[in-house]
């Protein structure tokens, strides 16, 4: 009787008892079919091991992984901060063109103490009232123009 695949694999890995190991060895020596099956199983097993090793190499964290992650976080932070200051600058410029350089003193707060989103929330209704909805929408679009959407998201602008 020919041994099944599981028995052949156990034989290959020397998992059987000494008596069973000897019996299978004698059978394979005289059976071309089981000898070929054992050879095929050995090749497939080696292939699986090679794939597994490659996958592990791919997924393994690099030695400088943490540094790279921290660096990316810092870069995103810098980009968000830069967008925030650019946004403030644009809002200040636009509002001063239409209302004058001391508008922030009248409104209270201002670019030094407020976030870009808060400034825009103050500026937009004023612009809408005094230059009309259409023109105000164009000014707000101009303020947002060129801003990186990801950085804007980080800055809470969009």
């Amino acid at each position, binding site marked *: 009787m020919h041994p099944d695949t599981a028995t052949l694999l156990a034989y290959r890995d020397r998992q059987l008892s000494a008596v069973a190991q000897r019996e299978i060895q004698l059978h394979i020596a005289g059976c071309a079919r089981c000898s070929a099956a054992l050879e095929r199983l050995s090749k497939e097993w080696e292939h699986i091991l090679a794939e597994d090793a490659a996958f592990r190499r791919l997924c393994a964290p690099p030695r400088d992984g943490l540094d790279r992650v921290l660096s990316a976080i810092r870069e995103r932070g810098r980009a968000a901060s830069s967008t925030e200051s650019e946004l403030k600058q644009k809002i200040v410029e636009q*509002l*001063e*063109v*239409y*209302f*004058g*350089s*001391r*508008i922030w*003193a*009248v*409104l209270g707060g201002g670019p030094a103490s407020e976030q870009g989103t808060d400034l825009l929330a103050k500026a937009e*209704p*004023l*612009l*809408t*009232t*005094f*230059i*009309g*909805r*259409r*023109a*105000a929408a*164009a*000014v707000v679009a*101009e303020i947002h123009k060129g801003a990186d959407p990801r950085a804007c998201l980080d800055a809470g602008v969009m």
Partner: protein
Amino acid sequence: MGNAFLYRAARPAPALLIGLTFAVLVLGVFPAVEWVTTGNEGTLRLFFDYIGALWLIALSLAELGFCLLARAQFSPGEPLRRVWSLASLGAAAHAVGSILSQALGIPGGLNPFAGNAGWPAAAAREWGLTIGGPLQMIFLASALAFALKTYRRSGLLPRIRPADWALLAVVAGFSVLQIYEVVLYWGPNKTGNFHEAITVITDPLLCLLLAEAILIRRSVLNMGWGLIGLCWSAFTAAIFLTSVGNIGLWLTTNFALPRALEASTWYVWFLVYAAYALAPAYQVEACRRAVRPLVLPLKPALWGRLWRPAA
């Protein structure tokens, strides 16, 4: 073509208005100097009857055009839409009044009916002064009242300072004096025509406009000089200059002023008209800066037809 042309035409408008008014004033200095030094008023009369009258009419038409353009930048329901509608009515009254009083109401000059003996030039002038005076002021005072309301709602109307209160008190005192004089003039047995009746409200109206102008001036001074501030400051300047012009007229009527001083009071009206035209021009410039091309009060196709030379 219509949109693009108007966009380009509106762009340098404030500078053009100031520059051309300055040029007309410089041109007007020479006949005035001649009149002061020699007493010859021929050139002076020519200047005021033709160049001066033409420029005042042109400025009032420019004011009307810019007011309509400014109105078109706001959708129905927006607070400044109503302000610019009233300002447009005021500008229309100003333009009609200017044409009647500066051209059709004078016996010569630009009046095409000057040779017609039956032409009622005096009546045209009276109507011109009524339409371009009290009627225009009523519309403007209403427009400024709504503008002040918008300023207050937006938090831009500051607390009135003692200096402003003092100025307002002077204006109120002057107003009371004017009303007293009107009551004395308009005694129980006095009968007058429609124009006399309506012109008695001119001074109280001017006082109301001055009070509104003081409040707007304070707001603009607090904010600095943006395009919107320039717009309302121009209205304020026009109102203050109208008062100066009226004081000049009163002085000329009641006192024998030196010729140089008398002549200088006539030229104030060029500044008044220029300031009235500048106000909407700055509003249009503010909207133009944000949106190009401008929203036009009429369909673009019609503008195209108006501006395109006939094929």
